[in-house]
């Protein structure tokens, strides 16, 4: 089987992968870099994937891992700032994202990286448990439990956000 056509993949999947990366790092410039790195890695290892149908899965794994690395580096570079300080939406993003959605996205980025990844892959990428397990290199059982706990944590974070917002308004 011939190596996959990277240019074709690039044209077909770059936008969706950048969107996936944005949901993970919440920063458009970083997301573009993450995806570019993923394609660059694939281009430099064309023999790693010879099946086009698997290339997207490979790229997805690469994007998730690279995004996690980017966040880790960003966190390290910021002297271990707590996760909720990591990646606030840019002003232009905040301006156009509806309040009801912004509350959810803000809460999402307070979650642990793996929780966020599971939720994004499940509720945006619409992957099955099995696919998420393969993407994150964890068991399906861990996917299930992580998703369950992540939703609880998301709810708590949203409650905290709402409380914080209302507090500001009262002042």
């Amino acid at each position: 089987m011939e190596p996959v056509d990277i240019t074709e993949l690039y044209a077909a999947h770059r936008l969706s992968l950048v969107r996936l990366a944005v949901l993970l790092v919440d920063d458009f410039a970083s997301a573009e870099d993450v995806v570019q790195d993923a394609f660059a890695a694939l281009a430099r290892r064309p023999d790693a994937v010879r099946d086009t149908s698997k290339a997207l899965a490979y790229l997805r794994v690469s994007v998730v891992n690279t995004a996690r690395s980017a966040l880790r580096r960003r966190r390290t570079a910021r002297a271990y700032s707590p996760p909720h300080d990591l990646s606030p939406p840019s002003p232009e993003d905040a301006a156009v994202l509806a309040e009801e959605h912004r509350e959810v996205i803000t809460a999402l980025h307070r979650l642990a990286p793996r929780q966020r990844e599971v939720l994004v892959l499940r509720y945006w990428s619409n992957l099955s448990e099995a696919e998420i397990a393969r993407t994150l290199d964890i068991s399906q059982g861990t996917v299930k439990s992580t998703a369950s706990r992540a939703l609880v944590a998301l709810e708590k974070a949203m409650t905290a956000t709402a409380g914080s917002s209302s507090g500001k308004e009262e002042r």
Partner: protein
Amino acid sequence: MTTHDTVPGIEERLRAALAARAELVRPEDLEPLTPVVELRPRWQSPWVLLATAAAVLLVLGIVFQGVSGGPRSDEIAPKPDEQLQLPPDVGRDWKADDQSEPARLDLDGDGTKEKVEFLAEPTDERDGRTRVQTTLSSTGEEAFGLVELGTTIGINALDPIDADSDGDQELVLYTTDLDGGPGAPFEPVVLDLRDGLLVRAVPDDPELLASGDVAVPGSETEYYDRVHLQTFGVDGATLVSTRSVNAFARAAGGMTVLRPESYVVDTYEWTLDDQGVLRPGEPGCLVQVPEATTPCESDSADDLPYVTTESTDTIGVGEQVALEDGGLGYRARVEDQGGPTLVVDGPGAEGSVYGLNVPEPRVHVVSPGYLVGNDAASVLVTSGSDPGAMEVVVQTADQAGLVRLRPVGEIALGSGSTADGRAYRSWLTGAGVLVTAVAGDDGSWDAWQWVRVGDTEIAPLPWGTICFDDVEDPTSGRAC
């Protein structure tokens, strides 16, 4: 997958918010980047050669006096003299990348922080050298160094360290391996101010101070190698690193590493000696758990290989079942069409058939989903009368039908005895992972996980050692 009880609408809210956030990225927002093309090896780049030569002259002149050890990858550079040599004063006109942020730290120890800028060598691939330059607050003189970090995009420093405890701070950057895939190692680059130059301090064991999946030399086989899981970072003003005590199997291609969720790591604090060499201290111990670390206890150990469940529900001739395949939606049935025949229905597999060869075939309800790379049906077939018989049948990538995956590698699939008389047994875990345990000489069992290694091949990867009270009952698995 999950129905949330306390906030019924949270899943819908999340789905809507994610869609809205994603759609803020419009096609026209994407940078008109040049499509990725395969690059020539880095060592062929004249820029890399120039950079390496300059950087190694800069670094090795002072650092490698008296340093022993094996050959380094940058031996293409000229051998250093015994004294610090000035690097070429290039890059004054280079510009900082938009995503690079100047670092602020006290390089000269006078209590005032210098502003350190990172100027990028302009190359087509944006992977040239970086000129690190500052003006020293104590003298007003310029200090600079040249480093190659793998990219010139987004150069940002970690927190500064004082690795030689002399009161001034060292700058910590890190490399990026654009050639690597997921888990590709990268390493810190520590720059110390010496004689008005920013000089790279090189670790005496560079591999120990890398982050990522670091291969064990000589561990490579046809289908896997073994890697240590490593990290580094700055804790306080100290450069610290961790390395998994054990090495874990990584499938060829780098897509899969059999990493346990919890594993024991050695920790190292690095100090800078008088010769400018970074040296690790005595190893400490931590347990790496998801998203955190915990202190070691006397019985701390890696998670056992996840083989202590077994999926035993099966169907036979005349029966059908909705496969437990993580929501993919495939159904399987076994028909007698002049012989037992597996029939699969579902996405792209309407009525796909496969003639079963094992006696009294039993089709497992749980799919060995790890053995297919994307949405596809997968079925494990065992025998009601022959414990040694086992087949994995999957939907082909082009959805043209069903095909058997051929076991290759160091051990056999199924159950029986090896050529040297060791018992082995294979089973499907509750999570749909196909595993084989091979008896050791001391009562322990070597666990192996089967992974896909080709279009129609699967191979076993070593997964660790475990003991069973009864290997026929995997739930009896325990630490040895």
